[in-house]
């Protein structure tokens, strides 16, 4: 059985099933089961790729190499843990009367469709299809963001839809330009959008067209990544949607958008003088980091704050890839991985915390360790991890990024440190009083799923102290592919 | 370390223990004369000590063990100080035990204990006295150390014996820095020994006193030891001043004749010093306690100035 087909088919089929399922008793379990199956298939696929090297699927339309297979595994993993988390979470939401049964159904099916779009976007070999899947991902998540149908969630979803729609339209224009450039080299064979062909011909692509194409792609996918000043949709969407959605938005969607951007950067690097794409990305990255850092201190809503934190980290990662080179790319990939794991863990903890206290306003959340020590410590450790405190792994990647920047772009280091310092002050100053202190506890009807939080954090801790050699090798290979 | 040296050291120590109350008595006598009072006998301090030793110790109810230990520690510290300061000879086997910096430490240790003891019983006077003593101390101590710095830089040593040996037996050179240091030292000595204008040993007026306030609860042998220690302190300071600024006549190593000559010379110098002290106490008025920091601050500044003069004028770079 082709694991790749299984992996893509499972979410698609179960999504359809869940749409039809109605409120059957097995529906939540199907959601988890499908996610688990997808994860399993992804693991097997990863093993296969690691063992036998890259491969195609569906003709040349899909291509799995060492760069994307790991993202596939990561996506499937976070998708799986998020589905675990969302089980009790959504039940509690239902019990609190925030969601009706049809909405729950919508949530589950859209969740599976979303997973499908993510996995398809990651594995497709066709840059046009990549665009299509990104757009589809937007569409599925728009419905998820507006799930509560509150004025605020509608507004957030509307902004998300319009801004990302417009943004991604620019990416389409960029893709068309790319096709335009590739056609002149590869001819009208229909292969002109296939990555495997493009990458071979990248040195012959016309620089004038490619520079314009890259600008459009950067603005387009950059909107989705959340680069400032294109980020405005992101905090709204994260704050107003259900927490599992925030977790996958931060943990997966941003990664996939960045992945798309990276693929484009490789082509641009081949066609354009060295540093053109990289400098643009470095500039955006730094600007994003600083803007997000200053935004952080003004936040009152906990999910909104962590959304800005995601923007901040996307800035760091973009900066890292902008620098390029083996170490920086390695660090960027590592940081993407760690950010996904950590941020989703944080959102899990935040979700439970917000449910327990009945609010997302940080000033009203106090004494989480008293309410539930595991949630409290999960949030505390997650926050410290995302802030780059050793021994958690985020520090490892930030260390590599910082040291690489010091070596090659010393001017940027003070700015990076400024951003990190301000972010630390802002986030930690907010989280600490929430975790500690006194409170009146309240029990929830369904026990929270804490395991995903600590599984994620344990992985993050491990990566800070020890990166398995196989993983390191993969990172190296992927980093080399990125140039 | 010779037998003669050890004997000389012991002799100096015993002499200090014996002479110290006499010096106090002498100063009191001079002061009485200068103030047109009829003087107490020269031996009065000895009578007082004897009387106090004979009396029972009356301990305040709350007094702790620290209160009882303190007089002995203070006495021991002062005895040590007297043993280190060369009064007769520079051949002191104990001298390496503590140099001039450690000497200041000894005084500090005594001060710490007496202040703590003062606070022990928990009367208003005691803590007031302890606080004021520490106030005087933290200002006087640095000034004293700066004086020692100046002198130590001249002698290239902090060992008191070595300093005296250098100063006494070198060709006569005028050190302007020593003038500053001398004035500062005098001011510090006045403060440290609870003399007018900083303190008045003869009064029990609560608003002004320092030393007496601290020992208000002491009686019997404890008080005797403290009074004796106070005399020893005055003696030690006097000898230190003499050693630094008028070192002539102090015997050198293995010179018994000089040692024999040093004793009368020392007594003479102490007598003159005591008279001058009485004179200072007579012509000055006790100042308000809040002026004391200014007084001692001046001493500190003068000492620092002395050091600067030493560095600026007397060293060749």
């Amino acid at each position, binding site marked *: 059985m082709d694991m790749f087909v299984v992996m893509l088919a499972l979410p698609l089929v179960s999504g359809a099933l869940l749409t039809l399922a109605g409120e059957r008793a097995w529906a939540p379990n199907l959601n988890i089961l499908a996610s688990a199956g997808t994860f399993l298939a992804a693991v097997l696929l990863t093993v296969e790729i690691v063992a036998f090297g890259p491969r195609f699927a569906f003709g040349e339309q899909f291509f799995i190499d060492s760069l994307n297979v790991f993202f596939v595994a990561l996506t499937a993993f976070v998708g799986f843990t998020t589905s675990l988390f969302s089980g009790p979470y959504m039940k509690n939401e239902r019990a609190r009367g925030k969601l009706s049964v049809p909405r729950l159904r919508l949530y589950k099916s859209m969740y599976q469709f979303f997973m499908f779009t993510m996995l398809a976007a990651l594995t497709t070999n066709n840059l046009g299809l990549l665009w299509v899947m990104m757009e589809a991902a937007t569409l599925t998540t728009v419905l998820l963001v507006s799930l509560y149908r509150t004025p605020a969630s509608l507004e957030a979803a509307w902004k998300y839809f319009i801004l990302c729609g417009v943004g991604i339209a620019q990416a389409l224009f960029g893709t068309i330009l790319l096709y335009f450039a590739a056609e002149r080299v590869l001819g009208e064979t229909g292969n002109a959008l296939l990555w495997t062909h493009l990458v071979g011909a990248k040195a012959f692509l016309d620089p004038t067209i490619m520079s314009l194409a890259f600008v459009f792609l950067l603005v387009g996918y950059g909107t989705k990544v959340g680069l400032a*000043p294109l980020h405005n949709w992101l905090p709204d969407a994260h704050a107003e949607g259900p927490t599992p959605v925030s977790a996958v938005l931060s943990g997966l969607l941003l990664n996939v958008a960045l992945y798309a951007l990276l693929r484009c950067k490789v082509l641009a690097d081949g066609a354009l003088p060295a540093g053109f794409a990289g400098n643009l990305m470095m500039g955006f990255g730094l600007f994003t980091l600083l803007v997000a850092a200053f935004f952080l201190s003004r936040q009152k809503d906990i999910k909104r704050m962590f959304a800005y934190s995601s923007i901040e980290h996307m800035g760091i990662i973009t900066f890292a890839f902008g620098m390029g080179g083996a170490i920086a790319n390695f660090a960027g990939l590592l940081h993407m991985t760690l950010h996904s794991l950590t941020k989703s863990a944080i959102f899990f903890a935040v979700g439970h915390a917000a449910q327990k206290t009945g609010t997302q306003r940080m000033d009203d959340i106090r004494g989480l360790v008293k309410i539930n020590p595991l949630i409290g410590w999960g949030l505390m450790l997650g926050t410290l991890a995302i802030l780059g405190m050793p021994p958690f792994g985020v520090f490892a990647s930030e260390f*590599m990024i910082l040291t690489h920047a010091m070596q090659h772009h010393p001017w940027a280091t003070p700015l990076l440190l400024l951003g990190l310092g301000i972010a630390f002050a802002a986030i930690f100053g907010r989280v600490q009083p929430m975790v500690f202190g006194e409170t009146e506890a309240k029990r929830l009807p369904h026990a929270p799923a804490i395991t995903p939080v600590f599984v994620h954090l344990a992985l993050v801790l491990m990566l800070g102290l020890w990166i398995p050699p196989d993983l390191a090798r993969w990172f190296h290979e992927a980093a080399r592919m990125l140039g | 370390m010779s037998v003669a040296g050890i004997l000389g050291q012991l002799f100096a120590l015993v002499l200090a223990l014996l002479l110290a109350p006499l010096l106090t008595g002498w100063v009191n006598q001079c002061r009485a004369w200068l103030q047109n009072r009829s003087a107490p006998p020269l031996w009065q301090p000895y009578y007082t000590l004897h009387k106090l030793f*004979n009396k029972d110790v009356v301990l305040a109810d709350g007094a702790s063990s620290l209160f009882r230990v303190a007089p002995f520690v203070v006495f021991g510290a002062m005895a040590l100080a007297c043993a280190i300061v060369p009064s007769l000879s520079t051949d002191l086997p104990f001298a390496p035990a503590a140099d001039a910096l450690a000497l200041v430490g000894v005084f500090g240790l005594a001060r710490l204990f007496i202040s703590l003891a003062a606070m022990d019983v928990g009367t208003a006077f005691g*803590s007031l006295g302890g606080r004021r003593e520490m106030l005087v101390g933290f200002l006087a101590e640095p000034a004293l150390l700066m004086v020692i*710095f100046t002198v130590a830089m001249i002698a290239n040593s*902090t060992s008191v014996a070595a300093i005296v040996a250098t100063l006494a037996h070198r060709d006569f050179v005028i050190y302007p820095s020593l003038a500053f240091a001398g004035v500062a030292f005098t001011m510090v000595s006045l403060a440290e020994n609870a003399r007018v204008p900083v303190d008045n040993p003869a009064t029990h007026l609560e608003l002004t006193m320092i030393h007496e306030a601290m020992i208000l609860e002491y009686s019997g042998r404890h008080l005797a030891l403290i009074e004796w220690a106070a005399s020893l302190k005055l003696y030690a300071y006097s000898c230190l001043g003499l050693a630094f600024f008028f070192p002539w006549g102090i015997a050198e190593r293995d010179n018994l004749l000089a040692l024999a000559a040093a004793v009368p010379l020392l007594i003479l110098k102490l007598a003159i010093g005591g008279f001058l002290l009485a004179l200072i106490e007579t012509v000055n008025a006790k100042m308000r306690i809040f002026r004391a920091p200014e007084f001692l601050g001046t001493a500190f500044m003068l000492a620092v100035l002395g050091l600067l003069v030493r560095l600026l004028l007397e060293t060749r*770079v």
Partner: protein
Amino acid sequence: MPSLLSIDALLIAACAWLAVGLAGLAAPRQARFVAATLFPAGAFVGLAVGGVGLFALGGDPQTAVLAIGLPELPFHLRLDSLAAVFALLLGFASAGISLYAAGYFRHQDAGGVPGLLCLQYHLFLASMLMVLLADDAYAFMVAWETMALASFFLVTTDHKHGEIRRAGFLYLLIAHVGALAILLAFGVMTGGSGDYRFAALRAQELSPFWASMAFLLALLGFGAKAGLVPLHVWLPEAHPAAPSPVSALMSGVMLKTAIYGLLRVSFDLAGTPLWWWGVVALAFGLVTAFFGVLNATVQSDMKRLLAWSSIENIGLLAVGIGLALLFHAYRMETLAALALTAVLYHCLAHAGFKSLLFLATGSVLHATKERSLGRLGGLIRRMPWVAWLALVGVIAGAGLPPLSGFVSEWLLLQAFLFSPGLPHAWLNMVVPVAAAVVVLVAALAGFAMVKFHGIVFLGQMREPALQEAHDAGPWEKTGLVWLAFLTLLLGVLPGSLILRLDAATRQLLGAGLAERMSEQGWWMLAPISPERASYEPLVFLGIILLSVWLGRGLVKRLYHGRLRRSPAWDCGYHFQGPRAQDTAEGFSQPIRRIFEPVFRMERHFPSIRDREPYYAVKVEDHFWYWLYVPIARLAARISALVASLQGGRIAVYLMYSFLTLILLILVARP
């Protein structure tokens, strides 16, 4: 070649600490098990660490590479003499503190899960050990930040109180900013080679400018951890907030790791120092010491008083480092060794007596539930053990002979006495005068210490509840006695230890005091020559003890030993109560008056018209208002400006995208 290298032994010790900590998680709520089994085990490991440190002093540097860390940069470890000195400090000080903690945490009922506390505590110890062993920037940073993190959790153990949370936040924030500066310093020191092993940093030849940048960044980073003014604001908040054993660990040991880092960078990694580095360190040190001690004297909370006193001591250490750097820069290596020995010795001394004092406050706190000096007093009658052992710490803290504090101060002043020999036209005049400040600081420290001991332990009890106080338990006593013993040992036998410290100075400077000192007797401390200066604490102590003993004996023999008790003299006014004693504020009134501009004071004076007249004084830190408040305001202003980006209007958002696009199209040309 020994079968078990010292570095392996230390690694095993670190693992043992971790294991002890994790064992705490196994039974998180069983205070008795955690306290009576795990903490003594930790103390035992501490003793072992100290012993290994002592053994490794003077040995050849040993290295190890662990299989963890980054793929290109696994953890490099190295144990050399400098690290050994601090391992010695860590081990022996923590042994006493852990023993004490075994008793203290047994009945610690307020706040904190015992098992969690145990984990954090031992993680803290293990990470400090790893800081000392780290031989590459990554390992160092990981250990350094883990140490900060563990201590942060310990500080916020009792997180019910808002002020403790704020203290913890401030602490971690400044520690983190400092860590970023340290990281930057390492980055600068690589000189663009990208090699972060310390061996590579050592080999790197830096231009004077970059070397100076590295030094200044290190001073900033380590200074933030150590509490150099103006980065000290967290210290008087965080140290008192922690449970007392933790305060002891932080003040006694953790601050020294910052000193270790500063020594490591400025003497070992950054190359030959420039002369003005010394001046910078000296200046910061002087300001810190002076500001610290003045604030120590005016505190009304016993633990804050000690915390400020720690700032003072850090200042003195920085002064010593500055002096050593100055001598080192001018190649006067023996004198540099003298100053450096003073620094190392003071680290050890301070670790002993400050831990002792903090633990004593722990006992007081435990017995009385009271930290404010205004409500303590007379505890020597209920807690004689603690009071007398604290007196040992107080004497050492006041820098008085014959205890440990005096030795280092004495060495430092000796070093100052040589500063006129500096071959620089004005340094040789200014630096000796700096000694005046050091001396003033030392004298003021005495004032603070007398205030501490006198008001807490002596006098009458200011509150009736204090009658209920009880002395420390056996574990606590053992810990206190151990630390007092160390303080005494360091005080009376400096010579032999300084001979061992020689290995560290020799490693950093290529010169030491040993060859001169070994000529003299072991009881004697004469770093340069006995004619120049000498100190024999044992003789010193002997004379004092002898005269106390002789005095007692003789007086009893010649006269009598009679003793009566009667009420204290009340001047005929028998309404006097404990309230008539000096308060903490009253005691320090002269200091506030003399040094008024140094403090930011808010005073309320009673007036005739007041219905209920009262006097109040609040002393605050100027630096808070000079430095931190403006920075916070600036950040808030920028944030407000940036936040206008997110104005809520979708049309404006679209315009941002549009303008970005247009701008890029027009500007970004290959």
